């Protein structure tokens, strides 16, 4: 056989793989985004703005931002604590717990929401207990927060854990011999060394929380203007046939995610450049 033909075949295969990858990227990722834009402003920016001013629209965006911020704050504390426990301590059951951390990624979010509802809802064990004390968790902000914290839990643990794992511990020992108290050690030595993990984990947690749907719809009760987050709002609007209203919020949500992605890229390459000089 002619080896030249093989070479041509080779090139052909490579070219088709390339074309398929780029084509699929356009078809699967860019096209929907473009159509989203198309719908949102199909009838002009005026309609777009009026849709945004509808009752519940801006509220949903504001609630989404608030939940995402709160979720990020909560997880940067408990996620970091968990990362510490998993990397710094050796105890029986550590490996099991380490594996369990990723469970929120494996369980369908709707199931998560359902489980929380069963536990904290009016009929649930904890729900009854708290209800008797006039504390309502489900169908309110705390319920949303609980769901989002659960769903995004692994991100911070993994991001901070990876940094902790690779950071040499002798710097902390050095600080100890130099007379640092444990809190000084944490703020002056440990925290600066895990900053990058915290930043990356926060971005992941925040953007995941922005788009959270499955758990939210179960635990929120989807109360317009009160517990309806942006993704729930989009779904509800679409269901009632208001495609423009859904698109208007959808485009803002997509934009926000895109900005976050951009910011993360910026932060990370900024760091890369810094290390390059060093």
């Amino acid at each position, binding site marked *: 056989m002619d080896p030249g033909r093989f070479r041509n075949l080779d090139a052909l295969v490579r070219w088709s793989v390339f074309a398929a990858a780029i084509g699929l990227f356009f078809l699967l990722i860019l096209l929907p985004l473009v159509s989203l834009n198309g719908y949102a402003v199909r009838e002009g920016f005026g309609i777009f703005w009026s849709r945004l001013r509808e009752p519940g629209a801006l509220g949903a965006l504001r609630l989404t931002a608030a939940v995402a911020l709160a979720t990020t704050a909560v997880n940067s504390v408990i996620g970091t604590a968990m990362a510490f426990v998993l990397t710094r301590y050796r105890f029986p059951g550590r490996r099991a717990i380490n594996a369990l951390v990723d469970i929120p990624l494996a369980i369908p979010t709707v199931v998560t929401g359902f489980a929380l509802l069963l536990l904290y809802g009016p009929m649930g064990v904890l729900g009854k207990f708290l209800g008797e004390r006039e504390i309502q968790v489900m169908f309110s902000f705390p319920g949303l927060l609980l769901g989002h914290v659960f769903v995004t839990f692994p991100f911070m643990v993994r991001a901070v854990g990876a940094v902790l794992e690779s950071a*040499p511990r*002798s*710097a902390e*020992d*050095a*600080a*100890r*011999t*130099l*007379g*640092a*108290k444990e809190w*000084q050690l944490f703020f*002056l*030595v440990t925290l*600066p*060394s895990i900053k990058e993990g915290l930043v990356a984990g926060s971005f992941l947690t925040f953007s995941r929380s922005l788009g959270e749907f499955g758990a939210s719809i179960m635990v929120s009760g989807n109360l317009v203007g009160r517990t309806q987050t942006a993704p729930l709002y989009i779904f509800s609007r679409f269901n009632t046939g208001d495609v423009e209203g859904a698109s208007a919020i959808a485009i803002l949500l997509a934009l926000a995610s895109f900005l976050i992605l951009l910011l993360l890229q910026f932060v990370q390459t900024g760091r890369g450049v810094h290390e390059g000089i*060093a």
Partner: protein
Amino acid sequence: MTPHLAAEGIRKSFGRKPVLDGVSITVGTGEMMALLGPSGCGKSTLLRIVAGLIPKDAGAIRIAGRDMESVPARQRGVGFVFQDYALFPRMTVRENVAFGLRVRGVEALERSRKAGEILDLVGLSEEANRPVDRLSGGQRQRVALARALAMEPSLLLLDEPLSALDVKVRERLRREIKAVQKKVGITALVVTHDQEEAMELGDRIAVMNEGRIEQVATPREVYQEPATEFVARFVGEVNVLPGQMYHGYAYSGSLAIRMAENQPLRDGSSVKVILRPEDISLHPAGTAEAGQSQADVGSVSFQGTHLRVELATEEGYPLTALLLRSHPMAGKIAEGDAVRVEALRGSVLPDPFGKKEPEYYL
């Protein structure tokens, strides 16, 4: 010398694995003790226990006569130079050096003055404001030393402070460290697995093996009168031959080594004869004089300042000799030659399991 550091009967296991098996060591005030031993013998573990960074299973640590049992690391006043330096990244040289003063609440101006003083001492004044990530290995090492000294500790612990550097820098810094230590007058314990480094740095050397101290002595004693076969083999090159005591001499075959007057071994007791290669002298073939042995030359290699000669004695023992280039035999010795071997000096270790030599040698 009054001991500044005293460790007594220190034991430590990780899981089921014993790492320190009853280590006792004392370091005199202002003395620099080198802790020498092979990798994994427990040197770093001992240092960390002294600094209070890890708990011990048994034993006691006293610093300046004070029991350290319930004193946490940050209050022990012990400076520690880590093997990987453990500098604080994202801080400048000055900030690193001033860290100990900062966490103690010393005010900024005083901190800066003090740090400047120490940086002068280690020759790093020029680099004071540079981030530590941009320093060479040797400079980092000096920052680590300066940082440990800045809080004026009473005891300095150094864990293989030079092992990450290349040979040239290592030799220069070795002298610098020793000079700084003597100048400050601080008591120091320095870990190394390099015998040359131990000899140059240490006023005394503690040789450690598998969680035990085998010998504590001056570099000269450790080399000339090793307390165990391990020490003999670990510190420098050595020939170990089976032998027996007789009339103040140790005999290995017909090779005799004169012992000191006060050596306690009885005539006829079995010993291991420890012979350093440079303490063996060679003579042209001929009738052996008393105490000499006949040998065949196996190989000769030129090593710069000296010649390395591998021999087999008439009793069949392998023997390595180092001849200075100026030795009368050095020019003419070759593989296959017959020579006479003389031991200029040596030492012995009791060998309770050694087999008796036939009487006719004696």
